[in-house]
């Protein structure tokens, strides 16, 4: 790629959690040497929101999810806490998802795991895949892994899903015929109209966007980007987006989990 106009600022959250926002690309990446968190491509003002949890509007969702974590729901009379204890027990989980689930025989996302526990272990209704309640919960689970390097597995039983995701990443869609790679691999660091293009990493998800003032899931973001190519999108939670999430996550192997992050 032509040039990476990522800034050189350092991200430390609450003065104690060091975030790896720049590192050497994982070996499977053919066209990129260095990977950057999307944080580097945002303005100083936007970046600052993430340096302290009191300033991070995404932490409001984390607080709401903490209440839900302890709230009994469903026919089994259980809460997340009944089985998992403190939310801190989820430390490390976000870093390895999406992940192959032996029992389901497929790669699953965090949101799918949460709904699986709700429907099969709590006897509760599932939450809407990209809805606020779910995205808040994924943000809570992410928040306890902040600072840990993303490390999703791409081989073994996950490999065919990963390959499907890679194909989707390079497919040029819609009437504008643009792929994820056109914008986030060939053109990161450049301006596309008013937007400073990042590498489209998902280590920061869920992201609180100043634009729509809420936490956004990775699949909602994917949908928006595909729609902007004047294409028919895939649905959040679809096999295609699960595969794409695994592939995109793997492009960020080595960056710290950062969610909930703040973007514009």
């Amino acid at each position: 790629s032509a040039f990476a106009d990522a800034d050189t600022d350092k991200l430390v959250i609450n003065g104690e959690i060091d975030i790896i926002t720049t590192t050497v690309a994982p070996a499977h990446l053919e066209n990129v040497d260095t990977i950057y968190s999307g944080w580097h491509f945002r303005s100083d003002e936007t970046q600052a929101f993430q340096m302290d949890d009191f300033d991070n509007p995404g932490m409001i969702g984390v607080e709401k999810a903490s209440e839900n974590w302890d709230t009994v729901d469903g026919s089994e009379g259980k809460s997340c806490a009944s089985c998992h204890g403190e939310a801190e027990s989820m430390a490390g989980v976000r870093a390895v998802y999406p992940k192959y689930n032996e029992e389901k025989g497929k790669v699953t996302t965090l949101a799918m795991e949460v709904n699986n526990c709700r429907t099969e272990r709590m006897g509760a209704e599932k939450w809407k895949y990209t809805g606020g309640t779910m995205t808040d919960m994924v943000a809570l689970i992410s928040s306890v892994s902040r600072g840990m390097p993303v490390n999703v597995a791409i081989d073994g039983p996950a490999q065919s899903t990963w390959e499907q995701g890679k194909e989707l990443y390079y497919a040029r869609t819609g009437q504008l015929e643009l792929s994820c790679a056109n914008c986030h691999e060939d053109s990161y660091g450049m301006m596309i109209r008013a937007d400073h293009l990042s590498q489209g990493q998902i280590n920061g998800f869920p992201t609180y966007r100043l634009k729509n003032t809420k936490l956004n899931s990775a699949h909602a973001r994917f949908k928006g980007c595909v729609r902007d190519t004047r294409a028919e999108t895939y649905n959040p939670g679809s096999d295609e987006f699960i595969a794409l999430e695994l592939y995109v996550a793997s492009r960020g192997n080595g960056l710290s989990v950062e969610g909930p992050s703040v973007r514009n």
Partner: protein
Amino acid sequence: MKILAISAALTAVLATGVAADTVVPSDVVYEDGAVAMSLSGKAGDAAAGEKIMNKGAGNCIACHQITSLDYLAFQGEIGPALDGAGDRWSEAELRGIVANAKVMFEGTMMPSFYRTEGFYRLGDAYTGKAHPGNPEPLLTAQQVEDVVAYLTTLTE
């Protein structure tokens, strides 16, 4: 029969507002990426073309900078600056680039503005929903001509 068919064709032409001497996207002939003849059969209007560079149909400045349009904020950096494009390229080449840049620049990121076939997962504009059949081209034949007329004025 023949007269009926012709008048049906004429009605269709009038209904879509496409003039009879317009070359439809699938009939455009490219020679080394260039297109010799006007797509609308008419001359372009450079002032109308300048407007198309901005947000809306063309949105060319999403990817290109044009110094003389510095009143338009947020010009992109994906493609080369278009300053001097009228010196670098002939009118026929500019027409070819605007109509379907992928003929001149293989694999380019620049969208094809006058092409209606061969898309993957075509959507209905920006709705995210599928578009049945072929779409309207991003620019009409006359809009392509207007843009080309404008680009020829970009000399240094």
